[in-house]
């Protein structure tokens, strides 16, 4: 509970609202959408905004709103999955590399360096290209592409911490290697990883959309915004909303993630005071000093 309060203070109301909104959709989406996102009804195809279908229907008669909600859930699910996988694997690799150092570190880092020097989309695309377009292949591909950065991050934290006196004293006190790693080094690495992940989620969401857009990620009929957008491109002139709505939703979600990451970073770096705070401070100080 305290964590949530801290988050709220750091991040501000609008972002908390946005995050809350998306969490709500993720958990309760299925019960909230008016129709089954995959239910086709050709009789009602390509209708525009109406009372019955708030956002209209697509070319196969599926309710756009429900599809948007389903898309949100898909994206959130994908992002969480990839981050969990990449984060944990990356942390393990990074921690081991940072702790043991030596040639193990060298080799692992070289491989990680390679992973870092090739952008995620290319790697993911290649993997999906070889193994076939499929939701799980996409997740796996992205997770593999995303591991290096977290490994690098964790390794950095651990390598720096390992040289600190307190680790040395733990060793002297007889703490086993595992204990040191699990109880002390991992939480430190976890902190950095979480902070980065919050900012990274946006990029990941975009990549999922990119792959789906190319037809190599989430497959129809499963709803996903990138895929919805590409399917609607041919109808850009007649039904632009089918393109705009998924694009807008994705933009808003990524903005939410990005703002979250930025706010967390901001919380660590105080900025100069706003005019209002300055006036306040001035008044307080004069009261204290004068009289």
């Amino acid at each position, binding site marked *: 509970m305290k964590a949530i309060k801290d988050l709220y203070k750091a991040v501000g109301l609008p972002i908390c609202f946005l995050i809350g909104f998306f969490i709500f959709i993720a958990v309760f989406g299925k019960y909230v959408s008016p129709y089954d996102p995959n239910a086709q009804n050709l009789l009602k195809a390509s209708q525009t905004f109406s009372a019955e279908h708030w956002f209209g229907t697509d070319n196969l008669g599926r309710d756009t709103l429900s599809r948007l909600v389903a898309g949100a859930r898909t994206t959130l699910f994908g992002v969480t999955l990839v981050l969990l996988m990449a984060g944990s694997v990356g942390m393990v690799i990074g921690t081991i590399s940072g702790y043991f150092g030596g040639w193990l570190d060298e080799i692992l880092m070289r491989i990680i360096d390679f992973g870092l020097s090739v952008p995620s989309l290319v790697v993911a695309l290649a993997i999906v290209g070889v193994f076939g377009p499929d939701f799980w292949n996409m997740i796996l591909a992205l997770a593999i592409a995303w591991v290096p950065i977290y490994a690098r991050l964790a390794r950095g934290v651990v390598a720096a911490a390992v040289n600190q006196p307190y680790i040395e004293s733990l060793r002297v006190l007889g703490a086993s290697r595992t204990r040191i790693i699990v109880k002390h080094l991992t939480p430190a690495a976890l902190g950095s990883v979480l902070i980065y992940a919050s900012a990274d989620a946006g990029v990941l969401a975009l990549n999922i959309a990119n792959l789906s857009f190319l037809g190599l990620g989430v497959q129809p009929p499963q709803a996903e915004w990138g895929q919805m957008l590409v399917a609607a491109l041919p109808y850009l002139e007649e039904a632009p909303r089918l393109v705009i709505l998924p694009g807008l939703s994705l933009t808003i979600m990524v903005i939410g993630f990005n703002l979250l990451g930025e706010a967390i970073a901001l919380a660590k770096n105080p*900025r*100069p005071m706003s005019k209002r705070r*300055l006036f306040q401070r*001035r008044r307080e*100080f004069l009261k204290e*000093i*004068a009289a």
Partner: protein
Amino acid sequence: MIQTVGSATPILDVRNLTVTLHTPKTSVRPVDRVSYTVNEGEILAIVGESGSGKTILNLAPLGLLPAGVDSDIEGSVRFEGQDVLTSGEDKLRAVRGGGIGVIFQDPLSALNPVRKIGRQIAEVAEEHLKLTPRAAEQRAGELLSLVGLPDPLSRLQQYPHELSGGQRQRVGIAMSIAGEPRLLIADEPTTALDVTVQAQIVSLLKDLQRRLKMAIVIITHDIGVVSGMATKVAVMYAGRLAEIGSVDDVLTRSVHPYTLGLLNSVPTLKAPIGSRFSGLPGSPPDLSRRIDGCAFMPRCSQAIPNCERGRPPLVHAPGDSPEHLAACPVVMNKLADELA
């Protein structure tokens, strides 16, 4: 109360200057109603411990505070008759560098590491003397030899990291006089340097002052530097002026207990080996809080009940010099005795 002996307008006239600083974390008042003057040709040394406000005193009126700090400034600071606190940004910029030159404490961070030294000096001459780039570059070379750097022409093309600490400070000095200012503010110019180099810089400053007929305000906590070059001394404590007067008065006929304590704590060669290291007990007060009465009282061995009653005003010290002043009720009593 504060009289300016001498005919001409003082080149720097500070009256009731008060500076309050606000940062996101805290607010402090490092300068609390300070007044003094600097006349042409004078060298005023402002002495005090770290945190006494001596640096802010000089830099805040010119707007030279670090980023992220908001300041409230009250009082007046007149340079050649013009109050810089009310001047517009344009006039202020003309004064900075052109009327008043500044030498900073740490020459390494004061210089831009990725620009050539020649450029950093020449641009001041370009701006304030309206020289062409080539003429300015030439002037920079002349300035470098003026400050005692050998082989000035090749120096112009060098970068700060290629020089030693002492050399860098000389460059800093060259930069500060490139605009031909009438007043030089030197903020602890020797603190970051080796002891041997310190003496060189001090004599360089004296030499330049003589040649270029500038007034200098030198901020320092080193009594040796004070006795080496100052004509006038102001002692700061907790943002307030404790004592001010000619260098002889303040160093040899000091009256304020703080000044006495300061001078006493300087170890001398003549003291017998094993004699006690006398510092001042206690520590300076917190400038973010209100100070009742005399700021030095908690640490003062001569404190009397009057010291608690409101901030002590500056009064004349007993003796002949009309300009020797101190803010101390004990001194006030002595003065009363003298007059009686």
